[in-house]
C-alpha cells in the first residue's frame, strides 16, 4: 500500500511536528510513508471564502500530485473534508477532473480513519502521561463523521487520562476567514470554548485540526492555568515527540 502524507499548508509552515508525528506513527506500525514534494494547499480557504476560480487550480494540483497513491492521509479533518465534500462540487462541470476527484476523494483519509478503518488498530503503542481533553473539530465531526475514532485512539494511549470537555461539540469560533470577518463573534465563541477547556481539569486540549487549535490555543495562552493545545497525532506519536 502506497501511503502519501498530505501534511497541509498550515502544518508545513507552522506545525511541522504534527507531520513528523504522522510519519513516526505509521513507520512504527511498519508502513512506509511518502511525502510528494509537489503538494501545496487544498484550497479550502479560497473555496470557503467564495473564491472558486482561485481554488480550482489547487484542486487540479492536488489531484495530479496524489493520484498515483493508494491512500492519502492528512492530519486535518477540515482539509480532508475539503477534498471529500468540496472537491466534487468545485470540479462539477469538468468531466475529466470530476472523474479524477471521484476516484481520489474516497482514498483521502483523516489520520484516525486510516489507523482505525484501514490499518485496523486503535493501539498505536504510544505513552503520554497526562490528562487530556478532546475537542472534536466541526469538519471532522460533522463532515467526515469521525465519530469516536480519535477518542478510541487516545483512550488506548498508556498513561493518558481522558477527561470530558463540556459542550465539546460546540464550534470554537474559528471558521477560517470568519475569524477575521466577524472577529467579535469569533472571540465570543472562543471565550466559551476556553472557559470549558480551562474548567475541565486537563493538561492538554487535543484536536484533529491545527487551524482550530491555533485559534483555541491563542485564547488559552492568555488564560493562566489553561491546558496546552496539542494535535492528537503528536500524542499518538509519543513518548519522545514534542511540539
Amino acid at each position, binding site marked *: 500500500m502506497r501511503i502519501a502524507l498530505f501534511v497541509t499548508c498550515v502544518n508545513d509552515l507552522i506545525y511541522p511536528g504534527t507531520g*513528523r508525528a504522522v510519519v513516526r506513527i505509521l513507520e512504527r506500525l511498519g508502513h512506509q510513508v511518502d511525502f510528494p514534494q509537489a503538494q*501545496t494547499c487544498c484550497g479550502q480557504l479560497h473555496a470557503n471564502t467564495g473564491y472558486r476560480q482561485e481554488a480550482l487550480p489547487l484542486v487540479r494540483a492536488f489531484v495530479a500530485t496524489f493520484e498515483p497513491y493508494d491512500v492519502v492521509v492528512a492530519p486535518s479533518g477540515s482539509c480532508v473534508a475539503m477534498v471529500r465534500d468540496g472537491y466534487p462540487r468545485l470540479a462539477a462541470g469538468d468531466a475529466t477532473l470530476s472523474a479524477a476527484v471521484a476516484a481520489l476523494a474516497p482514498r483521502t483519509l483523516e489520520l484516525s480513519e486510516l489507523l482505525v478503518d484501514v490499518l485496523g488498530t486503535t493501539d498505536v503503542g504510544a505513552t503520554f502521561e497526562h490528562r487530556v481533553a478532546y475537542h472534536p473539530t466541526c469538519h471532522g465531526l460533522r463532515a467526515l463523521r469521525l465519530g469516536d475514532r480519535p477518542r478510541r485512539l487516545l483512550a488506548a494511549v498508556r498513561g493518558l487520562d481522558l477527561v470530558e470537555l463540556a459542550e465539546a461539540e460546540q464550534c470554537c469560533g474559528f471558521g477560517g476567514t470568519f475569524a477575521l470577518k466577524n472577529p467579535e463573534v469569533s472571540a465570543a465563541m472562543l471565550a466559551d470554548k476556553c472557559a470549558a477547556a480551562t474548567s475541565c481539569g486537563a493538561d492538554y486540549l487535543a484536536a484533529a485540526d491545527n487551524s482550530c487549535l491555533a485559534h483555541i490555543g491563542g485564547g488559552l495562552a492568555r488564560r493562566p492555568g489553561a491546558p496546552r493545545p496539542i494535535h492528537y497525532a503528536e500524542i499518538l506519536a509519543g513518548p519522545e515527540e514534542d511540539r
Partner: protein
Amino acid sequence: MTGTGRISATVPFPTAARRQLADPQLRANLRRATRTIRNRRSQVVDEVTDWEALRAAGAAIKDDVLSRLPELLEEFETRATAAGARVHWARDAAEACAVVTGLVRETGTDEVVKVKSMATQEIGLNEALAEAGITAVETDLAELIVQLAGDTPSHILVPAIHYNRRQIRDILTAGMPEIDASQLTDEPAALAEAARRHLRERFLSAKVAISGANFAVADTGSLVVVESEGNGRMCLTLPDTLISVVGVEKIVPTFADLEVFLQLLPRSATGERMNPYTSIWTGVHPGDGPRDVHIVLLDNGRSDTLADEVGRQALRCIRCSACLNVCPVYEQVGGHAYGSTYPGPIGAILSPQMTGPDNAANRTLPYASTLCGACYDVCPVQIDIPQVLVHLRQVGVDARRDRPSLERVALRAASGLMRDRRRYAMALRAARRGAAPLRLLAGSRGTARRLPWPLSAWTASRDAPLPARQTFREWWAVRASDESAQAAGDPVAGDATHEPGEPR
C-alpha cells in the same frame, strides 16, 4: 421579482453582531433558552427510530413541490376556490399588504386579531395596517410581548427569546393598563394568565383574523396551522372573516404528505412529540367558522430563489428554527443581528436570496457562519445550509469580479503561489525567515501577543502562532538526504534542527 419588506438587513452583519454582543443580559437569555430547546429537541428526536428516513421523505416531498410549483399552486387555487375560499396572488410585500388592507377595509372594522405568522412579519403587515388606521393585535403570547415592547421578533418560533421573565413582566405591566402591576409576579403561569385575560375580550369582539399557514395542501385546498397556545384556534374559528398570508413554498401535494411534516415539525421546533393544536380548514362551511375565507399567496423573492439550482433547497424550510437553536453564532448574537424576519442559519441563506444580489447588507449574511454544520445535522428537511452558504459566497464573489478588492488581490496572490511547488516552497521559506524576529516577542508558549494590521484583527482576541524554525518539507528533505547518506555508508551528519531523541 426580488423580495421586499422586512427581509433586508440595514447594516452589515459584523456591525449588527458587535452591537448585540455588547448586551450581556441578551447573551445570557439566549444561551439559556437555546440550550433548553435544543436539549429537548435532541431527546424527542433520538426516540424516533426512523428519523433519518422521515427527514429524507420531508426533503423529497418538498423537492417534488419545488420542481412543479406552478402546477401545484393552480391545483391548490382550484380546490380552495371550489370550497368557497377566495385566492389572491401577491408578487411582493407591498402587493400583499395592499390586498390584506383592502380586504380588512371592506369589512368596515378597525381592529384585527392575528395568529403568529412569519409571512405577515416578512411583509410588514402590522405597520401597513396601522397606516390604514387598523390595529392588529398579536395573540401569540411571545408575539404579543414583542409587540407591546415595540420590538421585532428575534427568533422564528420564540419571538421573545431575547427577554427573560423579569423583563417580560415589566413589558406586560407597561403595555396592559388594566393589570395591577403590584399583583403580577414573574411566574410564567401568572404572565400567561394576564395575557389570556387581556386577549379574551379581543377574541370575542374581533370580526377579522389574520394568519399565516404552515402548510397548504394542493389536492384538498386546505390550510394548516400548527401552534401551542390555542390562540390560533380562537382566531381561526371565532371571527367572520379569516385572511391567511401564505408563502408559495408552503404547498404540499397531498393531504397524506402531512403525515411526514406533522411528525418532523413539532419535534424539531419545540421539542414536543406533538404540538397541542393543529388546525386544518378548507374553504367555508356554513354555520361553522369564518364566513369569508381569503388566502393570499405570496411570492416576494421566492421565484428568484427557486431559479438557483443550489440555493433553492432553502425553500424546503418549514420554519421549525432547529437551526437557530443549535447555531453557535446565533447563540452569541441573537436574531436581531441578522436584520431580517428570518434570522440564524436559515435566514443567512434565505434573506440574501429573496432580496437578490444587489443588497449590500444582506451580502454579508452568508459569511455569518463558521460552516460548523450543526444546522445541517438538525434540519428536518435536510437543507445543506453550509453548502448553500459557500455557494452564495461564490455567487457574490463572482458577481463582483470587476470591483477592486484587497481580499481578492491577497487570495489571488496566494492561489498563484500555491499552484506552483517551487514558488510555494520559496514562500514558505520566506515566511519562516521573515517571522524569525517575531519570535523575540513570543511568550512562553511560543505565540505572539500582538501583531501589526491586518493581523491585529487576530491578535486582538488571541495569540497568533508563528512559523516553525524548520518547515515540514525542509525536515523531510534533510531526512531524505540523511537516509541516502546512510545508505551510502556515511555516518549521519549532525543536524542542529532536530531535537535529541526525535524520530527519524
